[in-house]
């Protein structure tokens, strides 16, 4: 880890945030029927699975979890060399007439979510789409807002925010630092 980096959420904080988001999702949806959680790779998928487990613990029901890769829908593809694709898995039964909760690690410009909405449109027609993020760091470039937020983290544009999850990085942690990419 970068020596200038500061930990803003540790594993216990992340666990509490996920449980709270799970409660809020269930409260707003008045139960967990017709819910589908779709994580945006890579870390959003891990977070979606954890939220589903938390909902399971609250409601005793199994919420389907999938993954939605948005690479082919990005608006900045031409700015970088071609990227490898991540898996997209849509739970059996599809998303038509369900409430889809998109799950991502960090909400920043909103462009990833814009791409995810386009991707969703090609997969089916959900009854509603909600957005859950672990960290909202502000600086939106599009009119997009989250429905469920783990932590609002006011940042400057010079700062970097990094979410690490045990499934991918071996540790649960959110760090922030000033300067270039670590």
């Amino acid at each position, binding site marked *: 880890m970068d020596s200038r980096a500061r930990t803003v959420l540790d594993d216990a904080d992340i666990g509490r945030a996920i449980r709270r988001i799970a409660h809020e999702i269930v409260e707003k949806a008045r139960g967990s029927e017709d819910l589908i959680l779709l994580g945006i790779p890579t870390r959003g998928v891990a977070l979606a699975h954890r939220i589903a487990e938390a909902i399971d613990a609250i409601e005793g029901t199994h919420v389907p979890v999938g993954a939605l890769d948005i690479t082919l829908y990005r608006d900045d593809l031409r700015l970088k*060399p071609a990227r490898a694709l991540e898996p*997209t898995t849509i739970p059996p039964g599809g998303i038509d007439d369900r409430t889809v909760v998109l799950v991502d690690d960090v909400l920043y410009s909103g462009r990833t979510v814009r791409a995810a909405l*386009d991707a969703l449109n090609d997969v089916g027609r959900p009854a509603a789409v909600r957005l859950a993020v672990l960290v909202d760091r502000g600086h939106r470039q599009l009119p997009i807002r989250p429905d469920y937020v783990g932590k609002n983290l006011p940042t400057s544009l010079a700062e970097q925010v990094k979410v690490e999850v045990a499934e991918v990085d071996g540790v649960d942690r959110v760090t922030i630092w000033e300067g270039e990419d670590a």
Partner: protein
Amino acid sequence: MKHLLSAADLSRDEAVLILDTAAELAAVTDRSVKKLPTLRGLTVVNLFFEDSTRTRISFEVAAKRLSADVINFAAKGSSVSKGESLKDTALTLEAMGADAVVIRHQASGAPHRLATSGWIGGSVVNAGDGTHEHPTQALLDAFTLRRHLRDGAGDLAGLRVAIVGDILHSRVARSNVLLLQTLGADVTLIAPPTLMPFGVESWPCRFSYDIDAVLPDVDAVMMLRVQAERMQAAYFPSSLEYSRMYGLDSRRMAMLPEHAIVMHPGPMNRGMEISADVADSPRAVMVEQVTNGVNVRMAVLYLLLGGRQEETR
């Protein structure tokens, strides 16, 4: 990667990346909306100097699924039949703003010439040049092999593949030997001596003249068409004799191990290199090869055009 000219240009990791990308794109084929916005605004030209049905349509479907505009240019009925050179055709396409040119040409090396001449700025994809190479066919064959025999992941290490038939005139065989070798497979070429290329000993594969000795020890057998249109001499006494010596019939198919699959790049000559009952058997994966071809070509077009373009001029 800027161009795809030869299967030999691909490293193991690049080839696996193309196969992995194709596997993800295959999921799109199962959706009701089979279209992605990825290459919107880009133009792909199918420049076909030689007859082709499945390759041209496959590239066309692949480009259209990625939202590229597709221009089909067939030499017949174009100014090529009035004597226009490859250079002038290329300059015309460049002036019209082609971002990629998919070329099939009867002359070996034409795609290489197109890519390195500076005539065009876009990417060049070799869709078959003379008796030289057909890299996307090799990629779709590798994809099919991987799906059936390696659970759809990783490379093809240790896989035993026999390629049987007109090796001499086959760009499919050449590209497959190069690519499958890169992916770790063990390839054996089988042909009558007259249809075995000169210098085959130096190819990165084995070769044999006896199909019956090889079949019991392979995981897949790829049958090739006898390319009568490229033959100016008599390479074998009669088609009946060729069929008896090297054709795949149900008796020979029974010699294959239980799990082995039968492949053919098409078009098939039923009764010649492959009998009708073998072609229609559940072990034959020809129809799936066509489907996989679209996915693999989508992956190639995405990886060549989807990211930032490197300037080469």
